[in-house]
């Protein structure tokens, strides 16, 4: 059980990277981004492209960083995935959502547009890499044996560390930087923010960049944990939204907390249920939250 709890925290840290993006986007744009899971997937595959094709050609591939299953090249690949997904998300906003915004479309139409974007991104992944699962590394990794019978791999420690550093980075960004403050102001009241001279379109672009960048890292970490699959992000939407809603939609701290709770519950459930049911566990948790406390743990009352 202790082991499942630790694995739950690791899963939770992956979920939190996706859920923080969804919640930040919701705070600014007021719609659920149903393409977010697929942004994760594409981010994971961009890193795969780097590690498997692009970087080995430059002579950077192959090495391994200490006990990890991958090398220095993976860190470059993650950086490229972040920048790539940030650019793709801003482009998608410019091509699709911005036009709907300028037309004053209903928010639900934006959610629907994100469904279209999700399908497009999924098909691009299929076109580029096919439907078979992909692995960053086939190297076998020995696990450390910790007290309480917990087996832990170096990769899992890496996942947790990266996620925590990024979450802390988002926290500092929101609290300390001008753009972060502008973002919070825009989330509070977009019209008021605009009146005080905040360029809300720039805020929106930054929000997409941060959300998609975090999603890209989440996708890479999922690939490191298990494997890359074209549909992994679409299915992962369920724990992502469960975490977002559990924490209180629009609140990034809530999203982190919600992600940890969802991740831990999902992993603990495998003690009794088939691991295949993990998405269903997240779904049931979401329904319970909606019934008992629809505004979430840290959400403001509606």
């Amino acid at each position: 059980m202790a082991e499942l709890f630790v694995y739950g925290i690791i899963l939770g840290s992956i979920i939190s990277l996706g859920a923080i993006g969804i919640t930040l986007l919701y705070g600014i744009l007021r719609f659920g981004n149903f393409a977010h899971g697929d942004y994760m997937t594409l981010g994971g595959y961009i890193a795969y492209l780097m590690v498997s094709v692009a970087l080995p050609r430059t002579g950077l591939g192959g090495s391994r960083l200490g006990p990890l299953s991958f090398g220095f090249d993976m860190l470059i690949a993650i950086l490229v995935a972040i920048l790539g997904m940030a650019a793709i998300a801003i482009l998608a906003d410019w091509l699709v959502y911005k036009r709907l915004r300028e037309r004053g479309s209903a928010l639900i139409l934006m959610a629907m547009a994100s469904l279209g974007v999700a399908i497009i991104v999924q098909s691009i992944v299929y076109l580029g890499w096919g439907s078979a699962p992909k692995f960053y590394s086939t190297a076998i990794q020995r696990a450390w044996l910790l007290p309480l019978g917990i087996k832990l791999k170096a990769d899992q420690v890496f996942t947790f560390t990266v996620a925590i550093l990024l979450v802390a980075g988002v926290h500092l960004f929101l609290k300390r930087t001008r753009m972060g403050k502008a973002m919070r102001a825009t989330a509070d009241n977009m019209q008021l923010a605009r009146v005080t001279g905040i360029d809300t379109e720039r805020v929106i672009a930054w929000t997409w960049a941060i959300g998609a960048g975090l999603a890209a890292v989440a996708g890479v970490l999922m690939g490191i944990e298990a494997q890359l699959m074209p549909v992994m992000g679409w299915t992962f939407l369920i724990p992502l939204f469960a975490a977002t809603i559990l924490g209180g939609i629009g609140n990034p701290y809530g999203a982190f907390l919600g992600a940890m709770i969802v991740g831990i519950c999902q992993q603990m459930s495998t003690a009794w249920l088939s691991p295949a049911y993990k998405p269903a566990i997240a779904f049931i948790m979401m329904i319970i939250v909606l019934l008992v406390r629809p505004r979430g743990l840290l959400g403001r009352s509606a």
Partner: protein
Amino acid sequence: MDLGGILSYVTSFAIVAVVYGVFCLGLNVQWGFTGLFNIGVAGFFAIGAYTTALLTSPPAGMFSDYVLGLNLPFVVGLICAGGVSGVIALLIAIPTLRLREDYLAIATLGIAESIRLVFNNERWLANGSRGMIGIPQPLHNLVAPQNYKYIYLCIAVALLILIYVAIQRAIRSPWGRVLRAIRENEATTAAAGKNVSAFKTQAFVFGAVIIGIGGALYAHYTRSITPETFTPLFGTFLVWVMLTLGGSGSNRGAILGAFVVWGVWTGSSFLSDQLPKAWATQAFYIRYLVIGLLLVAILLLRPQGIMGEERRLSRLSAIREDATGPPEAEPPEGPVGSDTS
């Protein structure tokens, strides 16, 4: 291909298009008329298909494993498929419909995925990942097996017409006008004394019943279903493109969209099957891409779809229109949603 072959091909095509037409009509009640965002159509499709399969099949034999198997008639299977689908819809409507629109959407996705997981992993329930085979067909003794599809097309078309008429009647009734009022502006409708969440729940359940019946219709046609039948692409995304292309809010548009999109889909697969195998797979994914591009393009360029929404909804307003000339054009958006703040 000889004439008989073409006729047979067209009939098979038409049956599946009619089934998709039923899905589109169901989704139209939810999205087109009421503005409810359901991205788990595949889930209700699966519930309908499995319900009728389990009720109408003979008891499980040596090589398969499933519950029920009651040998019930087709019509009972159809009704129960709609009923069970409606009950599931009611269960997820209760916690989500009084909240934000996105919550319903994500709950429908959750139910669709969960249902697929349950049928995939619980072998005792419906033969697990191998699925149900040999689902019985109504009136199959009437003609030779190779001619059966003509009979089934008649059954499917009759059902489509029945559902079409039922929705048209419902939507032109005072009940239907409340749904459209909710879609246009939830707050004013509530202020006018209507119980908004009750109406939304009814519309969502009504739509789910129709999708469930469509699922049953599909199961009895293909005779075999597995959890992989109900993928997001075939179960949900295609239906969305059909409805938005045909015209959300228009029942004729919904059926037209089903035929057009299914026509393009099967037509292009007919072409891509001539290609070498590696290319054929890529061609499949290109069609996948086109589905997504179409959905976004329709939203941006022609949100009302081909048909657009019918304006006249009541006999009485028709009389007034004749007296005062054509009414002002409606806003071009599909469902113009309510304010969520």
